[in-house]
């Protein structure tokens, strides 16, 4: 997992489903770009970041990403003042 700089808030953790390499996604960052920064090279087509996400698989033609990830999200919640339907 990539080290965090001093004072940075811990973001979501993203994990490559193929090689299980992990990286930290900072606020607003793209999940696949974070994995690229961690040195994950599992994409068989050599695509990275947004280019990878937009890529339609040339074999299946279905748009299946060639390197899906698991995103581990966290949140802090509070009671609402007026429960609403």
């Amino acid at each position, binding site marked *: 997992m990539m080290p965090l700089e001093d004072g940075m808030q811990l973001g979501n953790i993203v994990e490559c489903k193929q090689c299980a390499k992990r990286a930290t996604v*900072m606020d*607003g960052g793209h*999940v696949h770009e974070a994995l690229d920064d961690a040195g994950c090279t599992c994409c068989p087509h050599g695509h990275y970041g947004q280019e990878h996400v937009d890529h339609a698989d040339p074999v299946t033609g*279905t*748009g299946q990403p060639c390197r899906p990830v698991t*995103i581990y999200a966290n*949140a802090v919640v*509070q*009671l609402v003042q007026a429960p*609403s339907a």
Partner: protein
Amino acid sequence: MLRALRRYGSIIGALFLLRSALLLNNMTDQTFVNNLLNAIFKSSTSFTITPGTGGGSAFTITPPFHLRLMSTQGSNTANGTEQANGNGYTTGGTSLGTTFAGTVASGAFSNANSASWTATGTWSPATQTSIEIWDTAGTPVRYLQGALTSNITGVANGDTVTFAVGAITVSAAAW
């Protein structure tokens, strides 16, 4: 000099007492808060609370609780905008399990079960900012809302978004 110091100390002391008197949060017995959280968020069956005379209408709490992903965060008084239905996300969110709450302590708890979605296409809107927790009544009721620690951006086909056990923190310690 000594007299001036004493007078200054008295003023500081009076201000401190005034501040203590004006601060009204953290005023609920924490054991009572824990009991309420246990009753509401650890229950696996529906139950109704009936207020006394003049206390308003009875209300029913209906587990299981559902986790909803929001593309725009709401507030304590207004609902946010839920992630669009489709591509692996279903409007109304996903179950947080038979029992939502883990161990309640010091007026706080976290989720006892994980919750996740696996995308079947690129999510749009592309960014999710927050979550809300609703019950599963016929007309669901919203109970909790809050921001993600970090936004989720760029979920595509095959990706999984997971809230692991303990990833959602609920705190009522400041009641």
